[in-house]
């Protein structure tokens, strides 16, 4: 297996330095689909998460528990549900977006929305617990409190978004089912790896995997940098 791994490293290096046009297309589509999904999930997810953090109503605890459960939503399940929705025989068939990148964006948005919402809720709830009273004393209602706390915690929210992006770009179940892994149209990094693996071209599959790992590694590096900046800043202030 050692030889196989060395082969893969060589293949990965050749792929990246050779600026293979097809690889560029695949990487670009991966970034585009997952990036768009995260942007959409960010909008709705952060609003929903912050709102949940500052309100209380009967059944609130049940909703939070359900949200935290959705964190572990399997991507294949999301893929299947979205496929059935978008199929021509399904309720949203008229949209005609199955087997296109748009369907992939829809599926990944649904997948990471709970991630963004649950993590945001946790973050904002912690901030609210300590400081909610002071905000209310100043006259802040629900919407104002949620918005101000989101602004207050913006650095930590960047971490949340990067986490969601990592989840999106490394999943394969949803995009495979709703995208169809069509060459040049809906093939992304993860589905390309799955294809090459099933063709038995393991060095190429592993090579692609190393490229994807590099991408995800860069993202996690960015998270760490942001957190360090936050930590250093907090230290300077003596918090």
């Amino acid at each position, binding site marked *: 297996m050692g030889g196989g791994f060395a082969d893969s490293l060589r293949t990965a290096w050749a792929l990246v330095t050779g600026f293979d046009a097809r690889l560029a297309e695949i990487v670009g589509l991966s970034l585009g689909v997952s990036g768009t999904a995260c942007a959409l999930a960010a909008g709705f997810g952060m609003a929903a998460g912050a709102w949940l953090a500052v309100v209380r109503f009967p059944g609130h605890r049940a909703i939070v528990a359900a949200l935290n459960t959705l964190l572990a939503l399997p991507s294949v399940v999301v893929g299947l549900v979205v496929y059935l929705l978008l199929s021509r025989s399904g309720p949203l068939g008229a949209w005609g977006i199955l087997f296109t990148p748009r369907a992939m964006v829809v599926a990944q948005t649904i997948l990471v929305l709970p991630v963004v919402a649950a993590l945001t809720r946790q973050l904002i709830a912690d901030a609210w617990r300590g400081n909610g009273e002071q905000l209310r004393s100043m006259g802040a209602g629900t919407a104002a409190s949620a918005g101000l706390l989101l602004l207050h915690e913006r650095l930590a929210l960047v971490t949340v978004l990067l986490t969601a992006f990592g989840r999106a770009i490394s999943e394969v179940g949803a995009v495979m089912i709703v995208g169809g892994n069509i060459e040049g*149209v809906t093939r992304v990094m993860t589905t390309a790896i799955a294809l090459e693996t099933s063709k038995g071209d393991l060095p190429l599959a592993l090579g692609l995997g190393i490229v994807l790992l590099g991408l995800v590694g860069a993202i996690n590096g960015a998270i760490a940098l942001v957190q360090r900046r936050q930590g250093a800043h907090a230290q300077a202030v003596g918090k």
Partner: protein
Amino acid sequence: MKRRIWIAGVLLAWAGVTLAQERFIVMASTTSTEQSGLFAHLLPAFKAASGIDVRVVALGTGQALDAARRGDADVVFVHDTVAEEKFVAEGFATKRLPVMYNDFVLVGPRADPAGVKGNDIAAALAKLAGQGAPFISRGDKSGTHAAELRFWKMANLDVAASPPKGYQACGCGMGPALNIAASTNAYALTDRGTWLNFRNRADLAIIVQGDSRLFNPYGVMVVNPARHPHVKAALAQAFADWVVSSAGQASIAAYKIGGEPVFFPSAN
């Protein structure tokens, strides 16, 4: 210069997310056909002739036909005559056009411990079962799987009711099944196209080939617009007509792996 192509490629793909409009059809086909590499050879020729892009969604035969029944594909290109004729009978296509055939081969450990080498598939399978030799089945409703079940039947074995010792179904595509066979030194039935392209052979080699019953016919069907009005019937028909025309058939015959033809044109 290459770096510019890279950047352009990334930006173009990004733009592609917003969906450029072009003439295209969606074709549901099988993983084994796609992995044989035929489409990479055939479809550019069709596009040059017609300007139509064919987007291939590769699934198992059963899934491909189901996707077409749901109206999610415009044309179907699979290799399971019985299932295809049922599809036509159900009214999802008006007819099936024969296009080409390839053949199946039985692969297994080079040393052939079960001693089944030859050109009679039924005899080979009967002997495999008797020896309890390991055999990997796709078990995924695919055309290959359907063919495999027919061959077992020819050997008078009902593998669903009483699987022979050593019989394992993986519910997976051709490539993954071969991966498993390669790592466990088992026998498996595969189409020649996938085998010629398969890189991870380990100790596997072709053990049985040449039996005329191993021939694997492919057919093309345009999804019936009467059942699914949104289907791009005209464009799909253009593809069907081209692939059975002399130009399409020649293109099929010209496709070779390692100098060997993989598919044999058979349109009337």
